């Protein structure tokens, strides 16, 4: 299982998914109305490292983080 956290304004509790790569996670989140509208503007971190490759495999215990647009300062 992979735990997915939604940060900042998305305001949803973390959810665990049974997925083996980011592509599968993408398909699930795109179908979920709570998340689909955010995805276009969200970055993705795998174990707290921002990632850029949708083909990355996920293993049990991995932590995925969804980061909406930021504005510090």
């Amino acid at each position: 299982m992979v735990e997915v956290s939604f940060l900042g304004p998305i305001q949803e509790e973390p959810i665990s998914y049974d997925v083996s790569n980011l592509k599968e996670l993408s398909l699930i989140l795109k179908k979920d109305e709570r998340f689909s509208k955010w995805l276009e503007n969200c970055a993705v971190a795998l174990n707290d490292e921002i990632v850029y490759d949708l083909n990355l495999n996920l293993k049990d215990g991995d932590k995925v983080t969804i980061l909406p647009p930021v504005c510090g300062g």
Partner: protein
Amino acid sequence: MLEIYKGALEVKEIESRWLDLAISQNCGAFIKFVGIVRDENSIEGLSFDIYRPILERWFESWQKRADENKAKLFMAHSEGDVLLGQSSYIAGVLSPKRRVALELIDEFVEDFKASAPIWKYDLVGGERIYAKDRSTAIKGSGLLA
């Protein structure tokens, strides 16, 4: 040096402490950016969420880059509510060389705005409203879309 505080920054205390540290490092140039919450758009203040694990990595990667120029980076940021006239953000670069400090503070502050995992909300009528229009999608966004 990265410092996160609940609520507004105690700017004078922070700057005083950083100055003592700067002096102890025998560096000639210390440049600081202080962000103050302005009275605009009828807000009562701002509020911030921070995701620390990625913020810390982001800061460490910048410190590594600064190390190449013998510079030391400083940052203080608020979590939660910060009212009008209070400060939510201080960034600093300490360097033996003036040019390094002036160039690095610019890049450091701009990348902070574009990349640091911090979310801003306007405080209006006691509510927290995501500052969507002022926010920036982090590089690489849209991967799952």
